[in-house]
């Protein structure tokens, strides 16, 4: 099973009582606001879920795996996600449940 925007929109329609259009727009806006914050260099902290942070990576040497040719991997800014302690323990709790 995979959770997608469609399922999230269904949930907002059923549980929050938004109409179908609003539910779809709300899901889109939720991820767009997170992208906007990250785009302007602002990390995003969603308590209970996790934090999205930005990391500036310096240039480093790389290689074209096909040709073996050396090409530098340019400096770049990347997004990292750190799950909250709450989310991590929820995941571990489920795993323990499957073990017993």
């Amino acid at each position: 099973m995979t959770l997608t925007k469609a399922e999230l929109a269904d949930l907002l329609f059923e549980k929050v009582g938004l109409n179908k259009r609003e539910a779809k727009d709300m899901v889109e806006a939720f991820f767009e606001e997170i992208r906007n914050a990250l785009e302007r260099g602002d990390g995003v902290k969603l308590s209970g879920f996790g934090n999205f942070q930005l990391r500036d990576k310096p240039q480093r040497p790389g290689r074209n795996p096909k040709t073996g040719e050396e090409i530098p991997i340019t400096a770049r800014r990347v997004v990292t996600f750190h799950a909250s302690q709450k989310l991590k323990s929820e995941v571990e709790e489920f795993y323990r449940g499957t073990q017993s």
Partner: protein
Amino acid sequence: MTKSELIARLAVRFPQLVAKDADFAVKMMLDAMSEALAKGDRIEIRGFGSFALNYRPPRVGRNPKSGDKVSVPEKWVPHFKAGKELRERVDTADS
């Protein structure tokens, strides 16, 4: 940006809704996402990224204080991979 700032921004985008709806919607979405991961499901949001669980095999670790060996059991940890649009928008050097 915190969760409450995100909720405030969404409330501005949806003036026809009461502020509490944006608040409830954000909580519902985050709960659904946590729940999906907690039961081992993936989350795939086109243009944003995907969340999945990564496996960590059991290993022998050390208590950093005493130096004693401790066995760390195998576990699953949440992992996020940014999607193409997010990667490109965040990488300012790219634009």
